[in-house]
């Protein structure tokens, strides 16, 4: 039996989070060149306009607005609560779900459409092999 190798660098938490050899991590979207809709993965046809072969990869913006939120108080064992589950519309297209951090997890502290930044941090969780993961989070936008 071979020893499992722990990756030297953190792994991306999802496929659309890209960690280049040099430079900053970023999120990759696919935009339809026909209708302009944005997806988080490549597909043979655009789900919106049905055209084939029109999705092209591009770098998603790190800025967006809080479209929707809920403060989660009950979750599975081991998941730290409360946390904010946030849905963010990115500048230039694309919508993401993620945790909104660096703000009090209370509905009173949150406003629809408040500007947020996408930031990249350690996920705080490791897989069975001991690999670390880089995740994305939302934070209130820096002025």
């Amino acid at each position, binding site marked *: 039996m071979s020893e499992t190798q722990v990756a030297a660098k953190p792994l991306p938490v999802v496929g659309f989070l890209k960690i280049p050899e040099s430079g900053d991590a970023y999120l990759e979207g696919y935009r339809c060149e026909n209708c302009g809709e944005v997806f988080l993965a490549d597909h043979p046809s655009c789900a919106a306009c049905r055209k084939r072969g029109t999705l092209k990869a591009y770098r998603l913006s790190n800025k967006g607005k809080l479209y929707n939120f809920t403060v989660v108080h009950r979750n599975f064992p081991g998941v730290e609560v409360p946390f904010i589950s946030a*849905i963010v519309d990115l500048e230039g297209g694309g919508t993401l779900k*993620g945790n909104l951090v660096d703000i009090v997890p209370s509905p009173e502290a949150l406003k629809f459409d408040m500007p947020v930044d996408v930031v990249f941090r350690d996920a705080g969780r490791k897989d069975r092999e001991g690999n670390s993961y880089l995740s994305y989070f939302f934070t209130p936008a820096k002025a």
Partner: protein
Amino acid sequence: MTEVYVVGTDMIKFGRFPDRTVPELGAQAALMALDDAGLTIDDMQALYCGNLGEAGAMVGQRVLREIGQTGIPVVNCANACATGATAFREGWAAIKAGIYDVVLAVGVEQMGRGLLGGGGGGAGIPTEGLLGSGTMPAVFAHVGMEHTRNYGTTFEQFAKVSVKNHHHSTLNPKAMYQIETPLQEVMGAEMISYPNTKLMCSVNVDGSAAAVLASESAAKRLGLMGRAVRVRASAMTSDPYTPRNTVMPDFNAVTRMAAKAAYEMAGVGPEDVNLVELHDCFATAEIVHYENLGLCADGEGGRLIDTGETALGGRVPVNVSGGLLSKGHPLGATGIANIYEITTHLRGEAGARQVEGARIGLTHVVGMGSACAIHVLEKP
């Protein structure tokens, strides 16, 4: 094409039956529905069985091992929370097509307790609570918060849905719970995912429901037209593309599309509907579906719950059975339990919770992923 009628239907009292099997529960409802019709399994030409938890395990055939292996074709259906309605609709479609003229539809589920949903698993690390939440209470909290964003709907208005449906269930002996829950108790219950408190989440229960469907000629031949209820429309949709659908399931567009198709097929409008059983998997969902089903104008959902128009005695009572919130939500059984409830009212047999003078009723379920099924039923 022939008209299709529900000629027999029943459901077991929903509850928790850990010592019984899925086929046993399904068989119980099947026999009750056959008894309601005064027919036997030998009269059935096909079985449509809805179940999610054992979707790979031939539940319909195992139901027949309990009640009679007659050799009829069995179709096993899995379609998230639209599973039971899908089984019913498949039976309806086969009769419409003229393939059979008497069929049985059964929905059955045994549920665990606790949270459903949650993101991640498989390769890598679990993403639940890291990339937001995929638990059902959170997903439907987002649904409610979108309504809040658009129309200012309040926590209190969402909570009133639970007060109403829990009240309704006190009149339904087949509901899991028959307990009044005053507004303060609903709002003060453990917060699960804002604005859904524990009493605003549907109950995970075991349950089963069944319906016997027949063509018009069969219903007449069998002498069953007296209590038959006509299926005026059966509509089903998958989720059409909407911009945020990839991260935030859109239960609105899929329901609106199905509602439009159902009203067109039935030749009636929402103003003609006397009662509705809709998919109140969470209190937040009921308010958005008022609008999706055309029971009120967009933005009026909060007002509808405030004015009591959807309570028993109101203009269009919604979830008089207690709904998923209080009757319980055994996923595969729910769609057919809704058919049972509406049929019972249209027959004038709903006892203390009877919607007086009900002529047309509507059932609605929507499963995440997504599948929406709507049926419009009419008193004979």
